[in-house]
């Protein structure tokens, strides 16, 4: 277990090596691949060893390793410390495991890119920061990882920065994350103010004594923390950056903007479950925002044409589910969905990457300039990409919640937990209903994506069709592994209802017990549970069936000649005009304020005028006045001198 420092250290080493190669010899792609993927696989191996050691010891308290004193200031003593416990081990395995597969996929996907070494350097750096985030033993260390993954996200969204759109998307993600980070910082200040510590173990020990249950302080801390989560995990109101983040390379979307980084907020709520258990109002806010986001994002996904954008909104929606889970207090359910979602969403994104790869090659070969990501240009691709199509169907069924695939168990557990809490607080029935409605839409839009992409007639173009082909094994291999995980991922937390042991739930107990003691989880009878499961499955089947019936694949035309959307479809296609609303409410006033007040008044008039040019002008005037005294005529000097002596004498003699 003491080897845990290697887990983040290996990707950091990979970053240093690849970063050096990127500067010195950017064409050494073989070496970059070996280092980039190798460090991740090694980190995954070490993570497995750590996990086995923890499972063998199974301690109640987290195992903390302190490496050096970081901020010893007065009574504040923050050390750089890593913490091994049930939660961090799960996250560590997800990050390094799924991360390894995505790194491997990237070898094929990015092969022809000129920035290959730079790409792997960033990707390794991201994994390092993500591991710092999940392994940190106190808030500041986690915050370092939190900021670091934001930085890497920015670097990778704007990876092809020569295109203004991509650079802008990177900036948008960075700025919206800053708003959330502000909340995280305020929460840390409050935690320090009330508990006098920032170490997780100490804070969670003292919190129930110093914070009253449902008191203002506990609620404020939890809500500020949640503001940080909404930024990082793309929830209302800070979600708009995630769909734009699709400007980055597709494996990046899979790793950062679907499987790992965006789940950091869910992780943080689970990590600080004691604080949230002390603030029932904040819990309701978390679950409410999650449920609303789940439904809202799902409606937008219904009318997107860009294959990655559909998946992006789907991610936002699924993250909403996870927040319903952790907001309800069902931490294990939230982490369970986080894990299974990492499997099937990574698979969906990598599958989409495989499709885009094929489309891009086809258009490249014929020098066409059509959009390789627009589903209206696809259709019938299952004939050309059979592996990708099959695997993506598995992931689609998993995300829609068809039993016995992994997504069914995790989604069902979250909805069940929300429903159970409804007995005590009826508002949770509403969250459950929102979640169920979102599940219906999820099944529909995912089936729509699959049908438009892989079935019906092909719309790519006659000349292009011959160039469509399946990706190399280095890309399909990870897809196959992720496909298997998507199928069997549910076993880690099979409910008792079907003879399972809810293993993940028990595994996470050392972490969640303190919070669960403060706010005991509600349970429903097995009868109700069966009804809920029946309802959820029905909804999923109805969603898919509706897509099969309602969508006319032959009527679709390529994007170039597609008619404009009208009515509700247009509103959904334009994402409920939220970006436009934010533009009008926040961006334009800020730009106006910056340009007309901060620039033209404060900068030009105050700083430049009064601050810089003012003293210059004043000294010039003084200098000019002084210069007038220097006539160079002795008579004048003598006169002044005499007058001065007379004045001094007159004063002295008075």
């Amino acid at each position, binding site marked *: 277990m003491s080897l845990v420092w290697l887990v983040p250290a290996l990707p950091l080493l990979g970053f240093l090596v690849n970063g050096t190669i990127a500067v010195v010899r950017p064409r050494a792609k073989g070496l970059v691949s070996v280092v980039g993927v190798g460090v991740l696989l090694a980190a995954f191996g070490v993570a497995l060893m750590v996990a086995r050691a923890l499972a063998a010891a199974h301690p109640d308290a987290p195992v903390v390793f302190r490496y050096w004193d970081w901020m010893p200031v007065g009574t504040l003593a923050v050390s750089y410390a890593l913490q091994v416990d049930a939660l961090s081990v799960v996250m560590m395995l997800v990050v390094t495991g799924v991360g390894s597969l995505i790194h491997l996929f990237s070898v094929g996907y990015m092969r022809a890119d000129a920035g290959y070494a730079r790409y792997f350097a960033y990707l390794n750096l991201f994994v390092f920061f993500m591991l710092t985030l999940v392994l940190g033993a106190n808030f500041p260390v986690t915050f370092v990882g939190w900021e670091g993954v934001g930085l890497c996200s920015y670097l990778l969204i704007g990876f092809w920065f020569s295109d203004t759109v991509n650079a802008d998307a990177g900036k948008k993600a960075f700025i919206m994350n800053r708003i959330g980070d502000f909340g995280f910082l305020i929460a840390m200040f409050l935690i320090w103010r009330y508990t006098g510590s920032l170490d997780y173990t100490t804070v969670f020990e003292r919190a129930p004594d110093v914070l009253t249950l449902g008191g203002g302080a506990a609620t404020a801390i939890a809500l500020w923390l949640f503001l940080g989560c909404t930024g990082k995990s793309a929830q209302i109101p800070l979600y708009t950056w995630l769909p734009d983040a699709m400007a980055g390379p597709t494996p990046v979307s899979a790793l950062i903007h679907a499987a790992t980084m965006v789940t950091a907020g869910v992780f943080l709520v689970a990590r600080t479950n004691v604080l949230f258990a002390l603030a029932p109002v904040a819990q309701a806010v978390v679950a409410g925002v999650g449920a609303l986001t789940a439904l809202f994002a799902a409606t937008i996904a219904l009318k997107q044409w860009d294959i990655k954008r559909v998946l992006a909104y789907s991610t936002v929606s699924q993250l909403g589910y996870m927040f319903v889970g952790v907001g309800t207090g069902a931490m294990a359910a939230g982490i369970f969905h986080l894990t299974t979602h990492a499997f099937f969403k990574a698979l969906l994104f990598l599958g989409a990457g495989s499709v885009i790869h094929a489309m891009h090659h086809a258009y490249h070969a014929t020098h066409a300039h059509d959009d390789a990501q627009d589903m209206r240009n696809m259709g019938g691709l299952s004939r050309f990409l059979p592996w990708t199509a099959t695997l993506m169907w598995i992931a689609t069924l998993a995300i829609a919640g068809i039993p016995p695939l992994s997504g069914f168990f995790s989604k069902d557990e979250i909805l069940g937990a929300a429903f159970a809490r409804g007995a005590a607080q009826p508002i949770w029935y509403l969250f459950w209903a929102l979640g169920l409605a979102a599940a219906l839409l999820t099944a529909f839009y995912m089936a729509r994506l699959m049908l438009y992409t892989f079935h019906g007639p092909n719309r790519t173009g006659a000349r292009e069709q011959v160039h469509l082909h399946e990706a190399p094994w280095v890309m399909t291999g990870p897809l196959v592994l992720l496909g298997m995980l998507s199928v069997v991922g549910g076993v880690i937390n099979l409910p008792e209802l079907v003879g399972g042991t809810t293993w993940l739930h028990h595994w996470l107990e050392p972490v969640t017990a303190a919070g669960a003691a403060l706010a005991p989880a509600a349970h429903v009878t097995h009868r109700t549970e069966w009804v809920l499961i029946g309802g959820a499955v029905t909804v999923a089947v109805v969603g898919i069936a509706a897509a099969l019936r309602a969508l006319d694949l032959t009527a679709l035309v390529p994007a170039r000649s597609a008619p404009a959307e009208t009515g509700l479809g247009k509103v959904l296609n334009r994402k409920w005009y939220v970006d436009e609303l934010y533009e009008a409410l926040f961006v334009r006033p800020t730009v106006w304020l910056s340009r007309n007040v901060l620039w033209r008044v404060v900068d030009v008039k105050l700083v430049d005028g009064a601050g810089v040019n003012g003293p210059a002008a004043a000294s010039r005037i003084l200098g000019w006045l*002084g*210069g*007038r*005294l*220097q*006539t*160079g*005529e*002795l*008579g004048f000097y*003598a*006169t002044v001198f*005499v007058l001065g002596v007379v004045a001094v004498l007159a004063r002295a003699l008075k």
Partner: protein
Amino acid sequence: MLLGPSLAVSAVLFAIGTAGVLLRRNAIVIFMCVELMLNAVNLTFVAFAQQLGTGGQIFVFFVMAVAAAEAAVGLAIVLAVYRHKETVDLQHINLLKG
């Protein structure tokens, strides 16, 4: 004895010297006026020395020595200026104008 008249003469001499410095333009004349002022001061010194002891008389020798040195340096400068500008009219010598 005769302190009042001595100081009166001294004051008149000093005033004439000052007026000369302020009003005349010729460098040599101004020099002479400065000497006049110095000697007016010398007169004051000796007048007071009559009553207050010999310290003032010793100071007069100091002033004479300084005046001699000043005359030597000053006249050398005037000579140098004259060689350069061919005039000793101070109105035409204003190189240090700001």
